[in-house]
């Protein structure tokens, strides 16, 4: 009787175990990537439909141009690519399908990745169309690795062991395992072990993390990819604060990104989402913070109480790039001792001394910068030639910056006189280098006072059609109402006079906004086709025919870029950065 009972008990036990295992693998198959990843992962990336994203990218007309580019062709010739290509061919043979189809099947359920701080490991999880597909991927990996290792004389390169009944294969630093439909690859084996543990509900998961749960709820559902970065550990350890609280030695970086960097030390996390379609690529990043607290040390960037708003965006005809941003340069200069290191502060002091002399004794920081309202509008626009009968060989766009003056009457006179001095100085320096002098003019155009310097045309008439680079410039200052326009070329300054009182108003909370017009950019490059061809001949050694082909191909590719934009906005409890690229030609 007893053996029968034992037998029955054993059978019962095995059945329970089998059911448990089946349940485990059934539940593993149902788990999300976040439920498999350990809680120590600090960067999490999720691509719900990788196949669709890949198709969007690979089938886009822009990709066809990239594939024709000489740089891409050269990359195909490198030994590394040749090796990779050989391995890929083997894999395709084993799978009996092309790599694109294989990737589609392997990631049908999604693709996710994580960076784990304790192990410094990266893990990738791909949810295959079925368990069979996942197993086939594993087998292909193992057999291909064994084959290559054998050819290279390393017979035992592929090691196999197991953890909690799950097989793990390791080649070099890469470890791979399959859990249900999930294929898991990592460069750190402990990370793979953690994933196996979590698949059997034996560990702490990312999904269980409170902050992750909260953030995931507001994740956009239509995003092609989504990133979550947990900054708490970095915050708690003070790594971020120490790194970012060091005084900067880079004023331009501070002007561009100071507010964002100031928010990072106290931010608990950062998220980014990518929207991808044939006509658009948009990356939106969000950083929760207390903007008002940031503004206490960086009011030059965000404004007092983080209420600084960018002025309207100006877009006169032929605009290639337009930028509008809230920045208070006088305030930044005043805060320089807190923001910058000693070396930079010494340079500030020296610059202030020289510029004060240049501005006829008026303190540059307080009397000059201090007389400008926070906010600047910048325009870069294509120029029409000839100007004054001269066309430069290389046609550069003109640039202008527009400011608002606090005390227009006084500031206008100071700037006008300073500009006259500048022109005089440029003429003396230019004469020493055989550059034509600037002819200084002052005129009224409507309500505006326009002071400009225009280069005298070259004495040799034959060179007026292919003149030097300096003929792209006719430095100009213009004053209309409380607006001060500083431009590299007179026509742009005059054009802006008509636009300064208008423009595209920024939405509430916009701190910085930039727009790039792809068509104007392409036209600017196309009108410099000759110089681009010459540059190609010099840099590639091509003859003219080959150079023309390459440049024309590049210009054709650029037709696909319609435009781009960047926007930084400030809400009550976060900073948002959105970068968008618009493309033509997609289906």
């Amino acid at each position, binding site marked *: 009787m007893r053996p029968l009972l034992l037998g029955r008990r054993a059978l019962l036990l095995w059945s329970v175990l089998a059911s448990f295992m089946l349940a485990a693998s059934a539940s593993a198959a149902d788990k999300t990537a976040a439920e498999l990843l350990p809680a120590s992962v600090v960067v999490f990336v999720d691509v719900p439909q990788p196949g669709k994203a890949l198709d969007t990218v690979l089938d886009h007309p822009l990709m066809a141009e990239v594939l024709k580019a000489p740089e891409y062709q*050269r990359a195909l010739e490198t030994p590394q690519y040749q090796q990779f290509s050989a391995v890929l061919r083997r894999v395709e043979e084993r799978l009996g399908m092309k790599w694109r189809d294989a990737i589609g099947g392997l990631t049908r359920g999604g693709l996710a990745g994580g960076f784990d701080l304790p192990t410094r490991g990266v893990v990738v999880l791909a949810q295959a169309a079925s368990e069979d597909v996942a197993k086939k991927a594993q087998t292909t990996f193992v057999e291909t690795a064994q084959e290559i290792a054998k050819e290279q004389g390393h017979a035992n390169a592929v090691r196999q062991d197991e953890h909690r009944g799950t097989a793990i294969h390791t080649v070099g630093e890469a470890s791979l395992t399959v859990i249900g439909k999930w294929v898991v690859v990592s460069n750190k084996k402990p990370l793979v072990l953690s994933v196996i543990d979590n698949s059997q509900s034996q560990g702490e998961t990312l999904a269980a993390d409170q902050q992750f749960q909260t953030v995931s709820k507001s994740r956009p559902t239509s995003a092609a990819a989504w990133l979550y970065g947990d900054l708490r550990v970095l915050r708690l350890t003070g790594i971020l604060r120490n790194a970012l609280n060091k005084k900067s030695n880079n004023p331009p970086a501070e002007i561009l990104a100071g507010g964002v960097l100031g928010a990072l030390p106290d931010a608990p996390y950062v998220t980014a989402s990518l929207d991808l379609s044939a006509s658009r690529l948009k990356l939106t990043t969000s950083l929760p913070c207390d903007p008002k607290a940031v503004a206490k040390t960086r009011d030059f960037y965000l404004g007092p109480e983080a209420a600084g708003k960018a002025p309207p965006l100006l877009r006169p005809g032929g605009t290639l790039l337009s930028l509008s941003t809230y920045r208070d340069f006088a305030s930044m200069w005043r805060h320089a001792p807190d923001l910058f290191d000693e070396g930079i502060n010494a340079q500030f002091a020296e610059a202030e001394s020289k510029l004060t002399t240049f501005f006829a004794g008026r303190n540059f920081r307080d009397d000059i910068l201090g007389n400008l309202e926070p906010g600047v509008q910048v325009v870069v626009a294509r120029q029409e030639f000839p100007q004054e009968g001269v066309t430069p060989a290389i046609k550069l766009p003109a640039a202008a910056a527009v400011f608002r003056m606090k005390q227009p009457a006084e500031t206008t006179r100071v700037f006008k006189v300073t500009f006259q001095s500048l022109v005089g100085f440029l003429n003396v320096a230019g004469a020493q280098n055989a550059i034509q002098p600037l002819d200084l003019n002052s005129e009224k155009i409507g309500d505006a006072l326009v002071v400009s310097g225009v280069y005298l045309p070259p004495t040799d008439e034959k060179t007026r059609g292919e003149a030097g*680079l300096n003929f792209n410039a006719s430095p100009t200052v213009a004053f209309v109402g409380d607006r001060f326009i500083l431009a590299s070329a007179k026509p742009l300054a005059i054009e802006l006079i008509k636009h300064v009182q208008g423009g595209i108003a920024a939405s509430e909370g916009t701190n910085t906004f930039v727009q790039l017009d792809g068509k104007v950019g392409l036209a600017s490059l196309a009108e410099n086709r000759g110089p681009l061809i010459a540059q190609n001949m010099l840099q590639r050694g091509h003859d003219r025919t080959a150079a023309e082909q390459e440049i024309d191909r590049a210009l054709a590719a650029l037709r696909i870029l319609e435009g781009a934009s960047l926007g930084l906005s400030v809400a009550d409890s976060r900073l948002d950065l959105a970068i968008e690229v618009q493309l033509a030609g997609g289906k």
Partner: protein
Amino acid sequence: MSLTLADLRPADAWQRFEPSAEQPFNRRLAAHLYRRAGMAATSRELDEAVRLGPEGAVKQLLSSGDTLAKFDQEMHKFAQVTLAANNPELLAGWWLHRMRHTPAPLVEKMTLFWHGHFATSAAKVREAELMLQQNEMFRRHALGDFGQLVRGIARDPAMLLYLDSATNRKVHPNENFAREVMELFCLGLGHYTERDIQELARCFTGWEIQYGHFKFNAYQHDEQSKTVLGKSGKFDGDDGLAVILDQPATAEFICGKLLRFFVADDEVFTPEWVAPLAGKFRESKLSVAPVLEMIFTSRLFYSEAAIGQKVRSPIELGVGMLRALDATTNMVQLANRLRELGQMPLYPPNVKGWDGGRTWINSSTLLGRANLVRYLVENPDTRFAGGPLEQLLDKQSIKSAADAVDRFAELLLAVPLAADVRAQLIASLEQNGSLRPDRLRQMLHLAGTLPEFQLA
């Protein structure tokens, strides 16, 4: 057996070379001609040269300037765009591009010769446009009238600025240019006195450069009589130059330099060697082409006293390799690499130009030269007949390592490889008896370190 001049007689050596069974005009001799009269030749050009024979090939080299019009126009346009940045270093890249692609390699080689002879450095002049102007003047007169070239250089803004001779006043004549005309440009040392320099300087008074242009300031010109090299008269600059050009020493000096540049570095060409050339030079009223024709069709030129008897200059090394292998690369970077080897175009080290010969080789430049070869074969910007180096073997129908080594040796080396060296190069290209195209770069780099590779 290697011959020197001592083994030859001038009377025989200057006779015309006639191909024979013992010394046919084959690809090896054609390659020698193109290395000296140009930078190097592709395989196709060598076939064409053999077909034409030595006289036909030389005739083609001498007359290729006639077909230059379209290429010249294109290059001029290219240069003008390069000038927009006013950077002479970009212009140096432009010139290397021109040397690589020119259909008239002898014209370009002579332009380089004159640039070294009438040395002017962009480091001091700094104006790219003036350097281009001078370069184009050298090219216009490359194979032509030496007298016209000298008169042109006497008015050349770049030259006068370089020699601090932009002004020359009768009260205080500027002797700089006069000295160099006698010592370096026309006569050589020992054929004039200090007095002659002073008198010649008086001839050039009133010759000025203003805003990059030559101007004659009559108020500053010394109208009085001068005596230069025994001739007296109220000479102006051109008259003074005419006296110098008339000197027998001028023809001898220039022909001696041409001999050293095109035939052999180390030999001392005594007057009996130079005299026939100088006679030809004078007979042709100082026209350069007949002298070159005499050199390139002579027995001397095709003798062992000339073949492999010159050290390749850095420009010949770099551009020659590109031409021979039908390759293109980043010419601005090449110019910078040549600077490291002591020969960046438009930047001669001093008014004497480049010494050349064995001065190209020392312990650091030897390494630098091998690195230049490595840079050329490994730089991703370098394309060989439009593709990667490995595909060149297919395009040249090369199937075995031995064929590859022999072909590259023929295109790139002035002297045959020793058997053991050849075997070593073949072995470097093979694995289990089969050609490994992926080892071609390594083989070429190895070849670039050989002493044979340094010779032109």
